[in-house]
């Protein structure tokens, strides 16, 4: 195993990676920007180095600065955490050229999965279901109608050059399709100078369910079950859990989805930890959306129900070790839920609410884990993601895991900061969440 690892990240995930390193006897090197001087992630590490001013492009995304620290601190490997440089293939190349191991997958698979249409084509060729789509320009309105009738309404019409919702319209019948087709062509032309439109089937009230993959460099590709992340706002996950409540509702779904995820990872020659994300409709039809080639924010719930430490496995894989367990050795025990505590205001359309934490006390208790990078006196700045902490509960059954989460959140003291804790409590108390019937638009419909 490594003796010294640099953690190229900040906040809770940098703290979390350092904890595993400490347990494995690996020394850690932290990096920080001016805004993070003295932050918890710098204190849990054995050494900490300043890499630049607060803006991420001048610090946490500044590859030369990070590599200089790696050189100076004489580390063997770099763990990227999630976000920031974690899915940047160029970073991986530079890390390896500088003589360090990168704790993550190969850069080629990152490049493949980072291009949505390449990833979609690759998944389809690997036999993994993708949302039915035209995969090319729709020639005219007759072709649009033909496609819609083939895959059945509703459908989504998208301006090829569009983005962020602009030039995208849903059509529920031929009349609305005629309008949507015209509007998207017009929007594409006026906003982007390109009237090309694509179409795909619109999945109503989809659930977000993903499969955790672990693969070593010795041909072993394993899955660690699924996570459901349907409680979302602005396409960002807020509550995650495993097992997915949907698995009890639809027999055989877990096997189909984990088989598909493993098939994709095998076809891509994947290594290290990764996550295959799917949308699932009400009947249990699932469709590949993307593969995240890194550790996920919500990897924690998977750890809680299996006892595996995913960061440890990432380090072992990067170091070239084969897994010392097989698929059938991975057992699921109980139910785990994670609530992401953000400094944000649910009443103001979930706008980030930076501020200074005056009083701070984390909850403790049976089956409760808190991953955080905060403490009293810590400032949540506008420079970074407003995630303060992740509260994770574990119990034998889902209702108990919910109860434990409620207790923990009620006993979480964060003074001086507006957070979404009350929103979590409302969600946890809702019939929709308790019955496991939440889809990805549900939360935004409530607020």
């Amino acid at each position, binding site marked *: 195993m490594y003796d010294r690892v640099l953690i190229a990240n900040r906040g809770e995930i940098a703290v979390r990676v350092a904890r595993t390193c400490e347990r494995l006897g690996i020394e850690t090197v932290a990096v920080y920007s001016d805004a993070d001087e003295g932050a918890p992630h710098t204190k849990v590490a054995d050494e900490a180095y300043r890499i630049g001013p607060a803006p991420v492009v001048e610090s946490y995304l500044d590859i030369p600065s990070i590599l200089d620290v790696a050189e100076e601190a004489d580390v063997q490997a770099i763990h990227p955490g999630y976000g920031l440089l974690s899915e940047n293939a160029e970073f991986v190349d530079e890390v390896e050229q500088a003589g360090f191991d990168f704790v993550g997958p190969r850069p080629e698979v990152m490049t493949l999965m980072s291009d949505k249409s390449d990833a979609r084509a690759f998944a389809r060729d690997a036999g993994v279901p993708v949302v039915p789509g035209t995969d090319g320009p729709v020639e005219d309105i007759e072709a649009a109608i033909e496609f819609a009738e083939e895959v059945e309404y509703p459908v989504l019409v998208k301006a090829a050059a569009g983005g962020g*919702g*602009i*030039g*995208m*319209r*849903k059509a529920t019948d031929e009349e609305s399709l005629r*309008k949507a087709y015209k509007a998207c062509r017009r929007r594409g032309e006026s906003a982007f100078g390109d009237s090309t439109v694509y179409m795909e089937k619109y999945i109503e009230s989809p659930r977000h369910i993903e499969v955790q993959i672990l693969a070593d460099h010795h041909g072993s590709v394993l899955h660690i079950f699924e996570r459901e992340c349907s409680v979302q706002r602005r396409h960002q996950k807020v509550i995650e859990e495993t097992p997915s409540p949907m698995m009890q509702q639809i027999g055989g779904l877990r096997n189909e989805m984990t088989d598909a995820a493993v098939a994709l990872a095998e076809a891509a020659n994947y290594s290290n930890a990764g996550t295959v994300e799917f949308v699932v409709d009400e009947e249990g039809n699932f469709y590949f959306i993307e593969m995240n080639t890194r550790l996920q924010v919500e990897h924690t719930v998977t750890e809680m129900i299996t006892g595996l430490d995913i960061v440890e496995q990432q380090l072992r894989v990067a170091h070239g070790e084969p897994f010392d367990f097989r698929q059938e050795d991975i057992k699921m025990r109980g139910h785990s839920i994670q609530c992401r505590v953000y400094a944000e205001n649910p009443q103001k359309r979930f706008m980030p609410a930076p501020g200074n934490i005056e009083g701070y006390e984390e909850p403790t208790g049976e089956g409760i884990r808190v991953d955080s990078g905060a403490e009293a006196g810590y400032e949540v700045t506008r420079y970074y993601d407003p995630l303060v902490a992740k509260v994770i509960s574990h119990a034998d059954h889902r209702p108990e895991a919910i109860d434990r989460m409620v207790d923990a959140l009620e006993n979480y003291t964060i003074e001086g900061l507006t957070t979404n804790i009350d929103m979590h409590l409302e969600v946890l108390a809702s019939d929709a969440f308790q019955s496991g019937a939440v889809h990805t638009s549900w939360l*935004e*419909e409530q607020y």
Partner: protein
Amino acid sequence: MATDVKSEMTGTVWQIEVAEGDEVAAGDELIILESMKMEIPIEAPVSGTLIEFLVEEEDPVDEDQIVARIEE
């Protein structure tokens, strides 16, 4: 008599497509909302004169919020 135009969805006003005082026909698009990464048009429920908009571009709107009035 004035008819209220309501938003069926929560979203953000992305673009206003007609001007106050314009004659509109039932089914015409008055406002384009951005919601759930899609454009959601708000159409005129009746034909008439658009007498006022109650929202501006970039305003957040709630489900059932009145966004405009049409004089039939």
